[in-house]
């Protein structure tokens, strides 16, 4: 009888320890998988700035200087197939149809293609890399040639890129292209070579209305944080959970 009871409690102990051990094993076994999910995430320390971008659609006048100066600053090929930054014009007509256009990325400016009496509303949307925190593009790079810098900027190492173009497929915003001469992928760096020297990115330097700003999201009193507090901002394609850090004020639901 006594021996039986001991046996029972021992069995219970064994059972418990097996369950506990199993749980520990399972969780420690699963942990490496969290590594698979996102290429980068917001760092916990705030030593480095954590850059984001704010674009005020209300202020954009569609001059296209941002797209033009981006190409000049970053030696982007002039042909109309390669852009780090461009401007789109959305026109919602009275009949409900949507027309989107971006002739040469807006570099040569816009001429009005739809007559006034057919327009319900129309506006410009400047586009550039969203500098996603959970960037799908850096996630898929097979060799570690594109990565998120400690400041949260997705960069491409052109000395290491193999040109497989998987990142181009993975970017939902169409912000990457294969450089026709270098044969490696190229994209917006938020003018990393400028901002590290205290200069504004070229697109922001040449924006006549100050429609675009960039700033440190860690700095809660900074320009960008104030912009986010003051306006009702949205990001592009939020359902894809890319952690985009490009915030638009007054973004219309039609914008893709």
């Amino acid at each position, binding site marked *: 009888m006594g021996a039986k009871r001991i046996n029972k409690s021992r069995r219970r102990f064994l059972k418990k320890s097996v369950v506990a051990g199993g749980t520990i094993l399972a969780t420690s076994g699963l942990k490496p998988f969290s590594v698979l999910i996102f290429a980068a995430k917001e760092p916990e320390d705030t030593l480095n700035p954590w850059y984001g971008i704010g674009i005020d659609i209300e202020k954009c006048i569609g001059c296209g200087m941002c797209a033009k100066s981006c190409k000049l600053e970053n030696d982007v090929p002039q042909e109309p197939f390669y852009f780090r930054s461009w401007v789109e014009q959305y026109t919602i007509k009275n009949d409900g149809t949507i027309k989107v256009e971006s002739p040469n990325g807006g570099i040569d400016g816009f001429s009005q293609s739809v007559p006034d009496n057919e327009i319900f509303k129309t506006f410009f949307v400047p586009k550039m890399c969203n500098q996603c925190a959970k960037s799908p593009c850096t*996630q898929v790079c097979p060799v570690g040639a594109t990565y998120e810098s400690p400041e949260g900027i997705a960069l491409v190492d052109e000395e290491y890129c193999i040109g497989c173009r998987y990142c181009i497929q993975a*970017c939902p915003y169409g912000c990457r292209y294969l450089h026709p001469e270098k044969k490696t992928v190229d994209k917006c760096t938020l003018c990393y070579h400028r901002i590290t020297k205290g200069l504004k990115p070229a697109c922001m330097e040449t924006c006549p209305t100050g429609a675009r700003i960039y700033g440190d999201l860690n700095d809660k009193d900074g320009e960008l944080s104030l912009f986010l507090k003051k306006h009702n901002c949205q990001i592009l394609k939020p359902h894809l959970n890319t952690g985009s850090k490009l915030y638009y004020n007054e973004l219309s639901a039609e914008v893709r």
Partner: protein
Amino acid sequence: MEHLYEMLSRVDGYIYPNEIELHWGILIVLYPYITGLVAGAFILASLERVFKVKVLKPTYQLALLTALAFLIVAILPLVSHLGKPFRAYEIMTTPQSHSAMAIFGFVYLWYLMVVLLLEIWFDYRRDLVLWSEEKKGFWRRVYKILTLGVFDVSPKTVAWDEKLGYIVTVIGIPSAFLLHGYVGFIFGSVKANPWWSTVLMPVIFLFSAMVSGIALVMFLYMVVSWIRKVEIDMPCLDEVGKYLFYVLVFDFTLEALDQVHRIYEAEESFEILHMLVNGKLNITLFVLQGLLGTIIPLLTLGFFRIYKPKEKIRKTAYFIISLLILMGIFFMRWNVVIGGQLFSKSFLGFTSFKLGLIGGEGFLMAIFWMLLPFCILAFLLWLLPPWKKQEVS
């Protein structure tokens, strides 16, 4: 760059300005196609070995050598497509753990070195020793090198060949599933692209791989028999046809399920995909992949399950069906790879694709990559002729 200006004039609706050029062309269509043929051929071979479907014996070595010939080529279009082909080694030296593509190098090497080469080696080792004794000069040395210095043909050692080969095949089946399911995952995990992003993609790729691989071995078995002027083993061919039918049923069901699910859910991307399917992919999807590549073979093979016409008719039918399926699966890959890039990720328009004749990504290059594995296979069949193997007494 002139062709890009031409593309510019052929854009429908709105596309993001970087989307005019298709980044993955015909070479990336060939990549899942060829790896699929490898995985399929290998699985047919393992049916004989592991599941003891003895009637398939005449195709066993042929299937293995086919898998090897195509696997050797599988990686070449991929590497030649890279912007910087000489940096390809980086995928082995610094694979990035988050990338679905990163372990391809290792999966490929595992499959080549540990599965296929080993299985073939165990299967042929005794013959290699015997052949090296028959031959003279250069080829004698070649066969000797291929034995890796294991000349022992005592019954005990030969029994080990059999046993170890069996183990390798057992490991090989999940490896073949991994190889091709994984290729499907490379596409299926791209959340930015609604045409690719489906959990069914790896399974669809796997089953279509089996379909194409079995069809390829069926085709090759008939061709090789005709060239050697030997009688085709009809029960074997019928059996291959039977498996082809079963796998084709699965493949068709899965692909139909995928499309039905897509249509019923009708997500944000539905309109643009609907236009894609009914427009730019109309012929390649409905006619080449659907009707000719799936429905007609399915009905014919299904009919053979109920009623068996004369041998001559069956032979001709199998020959035509295997070719139809090979073409159908090629266009399945085409519809996935090319189709997924024809529409803009803004869901507002289309770009177009024109296959050039010459150049690294042109039609002729693709033909070359497609013919190369057949040449390698011809050499392998000459070097390691399955029909000259001596039965172990």
